[in-house]
């Protein structure tokens, strides 16, 4: 009969080996499962069923689903995905479990509505989500803002946007911009100033990191578009006046057309091309810009800058 | 007034889930226990002793008959304050210490708050557990638990004590102590009703006994009266290796060991055997009853019914 010490030794060594083996196997399992076509499936997609299953703890379950939604979108976005099929169901479940989770509606407005790769491309679903939010939180101005935001930015339905902002402005403690936006929307819809106001409001009023980063990127893009537009106009004006295009942007300043040569939001100077166009130096880090792109440039999916 | 009056108590269990069968644990029982006596309730294991005690304590409800203790009904709280019960192989709350347990029981028995501490200490001393203060009951041996059980039964100074196998789990010294305690209790004027299957204890202690077997009462009375009808046996030991012929006719049970002979003869033949030995001038060393007469009574009484029961089932 083996002595107890020998048995202890053998058993302990075996334990260690099995532990090591199980760790290695788990890692391999993860790899195998990731390589297999990632099925985008929610095993339980009925909010009603989930609500029942939560046994009264739906608030907690909502928080769990919310976390899932954020991580789902964030990781896919980072990997450059072109579709986000699960985002709408996840947000739907989150808000069904906790209709007062305002940040979920905000997320939907910012990332469910826009076209891929920046969003799921489902503006109508985003509208429905926001309307649901408004119904359940009639005294929270954020939700009216989200609704108006979607109408304005994605659907370009300025009447409905104005209406949403107007309703929101009547809520106590509403952000002052709501009134302004409602009033000015009819006149200035589509203008840069309007868009800038919207994105600034979003940037200031959200606590969500991704939403804020997104808003900052849009604001930078607006800046670039504005700058490029202004510069190109000045370049043609210069050519008309002087008969030849400026050789460098500094010439515009010398000619008294510019007080200072602007730099792009990243701190780089704009490039003056031979045909009079203005281009940015680093288009990869300036998502959403519509002007100043080199010809044939294909935009990468946006990565939010860490400093945002 | 009798301390305990059992008036036709009976208990039948229905056994089985679908087809209910009646199982009779106790046939109608009739006997009394007088105040101030030590009464033994005897029977083999499974005879119905514990069932009877549980009926008397109100833990189980009779299917027939009634009983009275100190003239009151079974579940009368006023009566319960005056009785003490020691169950078979008692078990107590694991995490309490003995003093805490007894304090709790004192509370439930209505002992005055000022008295509790004193009585607890007193009774622990009396059962031979003076120093178990801080130890939790889960660490107690079987014998110690038995002593705690006795302690809780006598704690509140009851008039009648019901003890189910009070000697079980005790070593010989312990058993002696319990016997002495029971004698003391009798001298204090209490009534002690105890069940046991150990006949020697009953014989030495009891004023009267009742014998029960297979749920049926087989006999009630003073020990001496019951056993007088039964012939016992004695063992005779004498020096030498010679067995007189007369003795050989009385018995075949004899052994020669070294320098002595042991022979077992019927009590009735005892005198004849002694005469035979004397005639052969054999030196008698001892004459001892082989089995207690109560045991003989017991066995004799029970054997026929066991055989009959065997035939019935």
């Amino acid at each position, binding site marked *: 009969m083996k002595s107890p010490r020998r048995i202890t030794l053998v058993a302990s060594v075996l334990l260690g080996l099995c532990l090591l083996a199980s760790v290695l196997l788990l890692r391999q399992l993860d790899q195998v499962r990731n390589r297999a076509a990632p099925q985008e499936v929610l095993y339980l997609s009925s909010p009603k069923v989930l609500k029942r299953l939560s046994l009264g703890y739906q608030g907690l379950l909502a*928080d769990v689903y919310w976390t899932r939604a954020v991580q789902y979108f964030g990781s896919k976005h980072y990997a450059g995905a072109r579709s986000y099929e699960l985002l709408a169901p996840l947000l739907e479940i989150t808000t069904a479990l906790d209709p007062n989770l305002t940040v979920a509606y905000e997320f939907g407005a910012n990332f469910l509505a826009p076209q891929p790769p920046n969003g799921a491309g489902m503006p109508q679903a985003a509208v429905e989500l926001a309307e649901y939010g408004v119904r359940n939180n009639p005294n929270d101005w954020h939700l009216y803002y989200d609704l108006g935001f979607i109408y304005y930015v994605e659907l370009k339905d300025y009447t409905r946007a104005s209406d949403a902002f107007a309703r929101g402005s009547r809520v106590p403690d509403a952000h002052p911009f709501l009134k302004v936006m409602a009033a000015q929307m009819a006149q200035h819809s589509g203008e840069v100033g309007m868009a800038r106001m919207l994105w600034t409001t979003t940037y200031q009023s959200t606590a969500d990191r991704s939403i804020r980063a997104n808003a900052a990127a849009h604001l930078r893009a607006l800046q670039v578009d504005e700058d490029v537009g202004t510069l190109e106009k000045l370049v043609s004006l210069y050519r008309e006046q002087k008969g030849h295009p400026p050789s460098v942007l500094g010439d515009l300043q010398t000619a008294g057309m510019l007080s200072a040569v602007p730099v792009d939001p990243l701190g780089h100077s704009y490039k003056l091309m031979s045909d009079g166009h203005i281009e940015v130096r680093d288009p990869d880090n300036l998502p959403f810009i519509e002007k100043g792109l080199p010809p044939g440039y294909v935009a990468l999916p946006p990565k939010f800058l860490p400093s945002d | 007034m009798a301390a305990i009056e059992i008036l036709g108590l009976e208990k039948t269990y229905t056994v089985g889930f679908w087809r209910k069968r009646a199982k009779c644990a106790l046939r109608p029982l009739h006997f009394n226990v007088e105040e101030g006596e030590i009464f033994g309730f005897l029977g083999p294991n499974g005879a119905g002793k514990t069932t009877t005690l549980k009926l008397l304590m109100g833990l189980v409800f009779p299917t027939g008959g009634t009983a009275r203790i100190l003239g009151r009904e079974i579940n009368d*709280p006023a009566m319960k304050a005056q009785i003490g019960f020691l169950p078979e192989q008692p*078990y*107590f709350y694991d*995490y309490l210490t003995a003093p805490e347990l007894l304090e709790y029981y004192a509370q439930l028995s209505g002992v005055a708050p000022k008295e509790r501490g004193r009585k607890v200490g007193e009774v622990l001393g009396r059962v031979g557990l003076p120093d178990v203060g801080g130890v939790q009951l889960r660490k107690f041996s079987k014998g110690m638990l038995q002593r705690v059980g006795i302690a809780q039964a006598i704690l509140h100074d009851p008039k009648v004590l019901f003890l189910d196998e009070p000697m079980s789990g005790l070593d010989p010294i312990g058993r002696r102590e319990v016997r002495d305690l029971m004698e003391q209790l009798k001298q204090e004027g209490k009534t002690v009703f105890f069940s046991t299957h150990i006949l020697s204890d009953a014989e030495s202690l009891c004023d009267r006994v009742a014998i029960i077997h297979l749920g049926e009462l087989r006999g009630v009375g003073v020990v001496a009266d019951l056993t007088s009808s039964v012939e016992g046996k004695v063992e005779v030991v004498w020096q030498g290796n010679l067995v007189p012929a007369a003795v050989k006719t009385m018995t075949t049970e004899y052994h020669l060991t070294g320098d002595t002979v042991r022979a077992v003869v019927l009590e009735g033949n005892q005198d004849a055997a002694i005469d035979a030995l004397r005639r052969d001038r054999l030196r008698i060393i001892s004459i001892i009853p082989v089995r207690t007469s109560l045991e003989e009574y017991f066995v004799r009484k029970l054997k026929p019914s066991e055989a009959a029961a065997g035939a019935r089932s």
Partner: protein
Amino acid sequence: MSSRIAYIAFNTFREAVRDRVLYNLVAFAVLMSGAAILVGQISIGIERLVVVNLGLAAVSLFGMVIAIFIGIALVSKEIDKRTLYTVLSRPVQRWEFIVGKFLGLAGTLVVNTVFMAVGVFAALLYVSPHFQVADTWILVALYFIVLQFLIITSLALLFSSFSSPLLSAVFAFSLFVIGSFSEDLRGFAALAQGATRWLATAAAYLVPDFSSLNVISSVAHGQPVASQLILSNTLYAVVYAGMILCGAVVIFEHRNLK
């Protein structure tokens, strides 16, 4: 009479504590600490919400488990181990025993909840630098959770008085699950027809209503709880637990102890 109930209750409490039930608080503390620290990484902007949701859910679940695990053994263990014999041979009525046991376990749960409440508020303080007025409603949610405990304890005790521990646990837990959507059950009963309607209605009203007692989500959002609701829930819990206790008393009163 009442002093005997108090003695039994205190003894039950003492037994639970010495049986190390309060050690669950260690696990709870670990959970709350971990959550408070991690929530900032995982769910930004809704830290307070998550801490309250998680904390109250944990208080509720831990307590339910304790209530059920200890409750189902309250009577059956005493019968099995025969500790009950020496109690009932004293001038203690069977119903006093049941009530005393109930109060003892309820008391244990209240004490446990108080400690846990401290933990929840500590975690809350960690994630948001100071308390808000809305945090007082968390106390109401905790009170409601205690009322839930009263109900589930009475149910566990009821089952313990006649059933084995395993079955008692299954029944008690099932009633907790069904009770958490009793509201839906009542709605379903109203819409059903015929025999189903009668059965469903009976079930819907017999099953304990845990859904009304759960205000965790709204309290997590800082919403107030109507005082009418507080009053109604208190009365309901008392009445329901009382009903179940009466049932336990009746069953126990007629039980032959083995």
